[in-house]
């Protein structure tokens, strides 16, 4: 082994330079800039109604991005999130029967179970059989799509009244006024995101949370330390499923119907947003909270494009271009810092 004597000096030059080269700080800076731009472009940005509307439109992507982040950190990747989301909406709306509030509860339980099964199947493919995650989740995405189409060949289905609590409490007829008022200020979407954050907060303090990083960073080392890497990756997939579940609740609360194709555009966006938020596609790095930031940046940029009056037709186009720029930027950043690290390592 070649011996290396180089010591790594922190960026002592100036505090400012150190701060700027810190990627997390840069991200927050970009977020603030995007936030400001949107505020300028969107009329009544600071009006309560607008804030609530924005939160609502951002929430699905935020939830999916956070879930995806967990999977990517563990060394995987999930291309099936979009169709999994669609499937869950279809399950929800197929179980519920309008006018029978109890079916809402059944729907919740059953759909959660389905979400867990989705996570387990993906986890088995990625963690146990160690099939490249890209391909295996590509395959499973079609299974979810197929089942969703079976349940809901066309968008539709039924919901119960109180289910709208996941979107806008004000829509529920019999809800107490105080609750409605509360829901107008603190939208349920925000609560869903909060639940997701709390969930991750708890998990990151357990062994699983630590092992997700370990396995994603170096699964060989993790294995040699006695960690059950297959189980850890499966758990990551299941955690992802919970986030997808929360997003499904929101969608059904909002639209009252299930749609087998609604999730398709979100898959790529979730991955891109995670990368923008600092999650390394190679695994082991990044913070789920910053994935949230990434989703926010992504969403604000989309809003900016929208308000800049770019015709609807161009939006898909821009979406794709943004993704490439975002990923390219993040990858170049990650690659250059990783390369510097590897050059000083032992072979």
């Amino acid at each position, binding site marked *: 082994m070649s011996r290396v004597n180089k010591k790594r000096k922190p960026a002592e030059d100036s505090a400012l330079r150190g701060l700027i080269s810190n990627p997390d700080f840069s991200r927050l800076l970009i977020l603030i800039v995007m936030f400001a731009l949107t505020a300028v472009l969107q009329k009544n940005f600071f009006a309560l109604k607008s804030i609530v509307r924005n939160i609502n439109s951002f929430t699905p992507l935020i939830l999916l991005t956070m879930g995806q982040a967990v999977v990517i950190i563990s060394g995987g990747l999930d291309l099936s999130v979009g169709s999994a989301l669609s499937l869950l909406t279809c399950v929800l709306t197929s179980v519920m029967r309008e006018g029978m509030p109890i079916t809402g509860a059944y729907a919740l339980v059953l759909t959660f179970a389905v979400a867990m099964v989705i996570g387990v199947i993906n986890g088995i493919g990625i963690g146990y059989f160690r099939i490249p995650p890209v391909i295996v989740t590509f395959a499973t995405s079609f299974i979810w799509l197929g089942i969703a189409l079976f349940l809901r060949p066309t968008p539709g289905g039924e919901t119960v009244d109180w289910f709208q609590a996941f979107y806008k409490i004000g829509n529920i007829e019999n809800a107490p006024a105080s609750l409605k008022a509360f829901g107008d200020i603190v939208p349920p979407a925000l609560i869903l995101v909060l639940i997701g954050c709390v969930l991750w907060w708890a998990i990151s303090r357990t062994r699983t949370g630590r092992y997700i990083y370990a396995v994603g960073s170096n699964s060989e080392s993790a294995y040699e330390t006695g960690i059950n890497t297959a189980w850890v990756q499966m758990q990551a997939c299941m955690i992802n499923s919970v986030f997808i579940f929360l997003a499904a609740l929101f969608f059904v609360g909002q639209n009252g119907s299930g749609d087998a194709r609604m999730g398709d555009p979100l898959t790529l966006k979730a991955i891109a947003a995670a990368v923008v938020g600092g999650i390394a596609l190679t695994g082991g790095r990044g913070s789920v909270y910053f994935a949230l930031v990434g989703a926010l940046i992504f969403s604000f940029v989309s809003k900016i494009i929208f308000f800049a009056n770019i015709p609807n037709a161009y939006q898909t186009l821009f979406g794709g271009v943004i993704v490439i720029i975002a*990923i390219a930027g993040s990858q170049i950043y990650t690659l250059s810092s990783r390369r510097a690290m590897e050059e000083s390592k032992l072979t």
Partner: protein
Amino acid sequence: MSRLMSIRDNAAFTIINRYKKLIIAFLLILFLFVLGEITVETFFSLGQILLTLKLASFIALFGLCQMVVIAAGGSGLDLSVGYTATITAVFTAAIMDGQNANLWMAVFVALGLGVAIGLANGVLTAYFKLPPLVVTLAMANILQGVINVYTAGKNITGRPSPVLQIIAAKSTGIFPNIVFILIIVTPIVMIIMYKTKLGLKLFGSGSNETAAYLSGVNVKMVRCTAFIFSGTLASLIGLLLIGNMGIAFKDMGSNYVMPSIAAVVVGGVSLTGGDGNYVGVILGSIFLQTLTNLLVALGWGDAGKWTGFGIVLFALLIVYLSSRHRR
């Protein structure tokens, strides 16, 4: 020492392996036909077989795009082939406008589009080292966006030139013409893959990047070229698609992406690269088309088709790609 032993054991297997995957693919097809015959009458008829071959040919051609990109290694995958074909179909439809006169221009435009898209994919993946999955997926999105912009508010006009229709849609006697195309293309591909320096460089890059590099091969250029090939071929397939369908529509090509990858997997071509047995891919395509027909014949519709596809692919991935034993 123990490493040598396991290498020797593998030796016997590798030879059988080479043909084993083809044999398995063939057997699977037979199995499906038998299953079809049992459950649905007249499944195993000449007409059905020919129709299957015709539709499978399209999958096989897309599968060729995938195979080349995958063979070059580096986790290569091209998810943009579907929309590449679609965008070509949409643009050239208007150019051809039902006449033969502008066919050459259409071909020219198709080539231009294909090369441009392939070049973009290739540069981003090989030189910028971005993951091919994400790049080609984003590219597909971009192309979809461009199509949206182009067709905003209006219908897609234009019809393919009659020559194209003859090639793609019609048959000579009972034999669909497109199958002829496949039959011509296949030996050319096999020769290039296995007997020219181009093919060997491709395999080398996919099989062992370091060894190829140390032998003087410019691996990055090889991989970029693979994407250019894929894009160009996908574009030309777009011409065939519109020739077959008679009109162009927005989702023309996107339904072929998944089957094209599945065909590669079923055909036993390694997803890590270095492999390129096109016959396997063709068998894989036939298998997938037969599966589709079976699912449709059973009356399960779209839902059944996708679920079936997904499950079969998942099962095959387990069989072919599981690396449980590595530890």
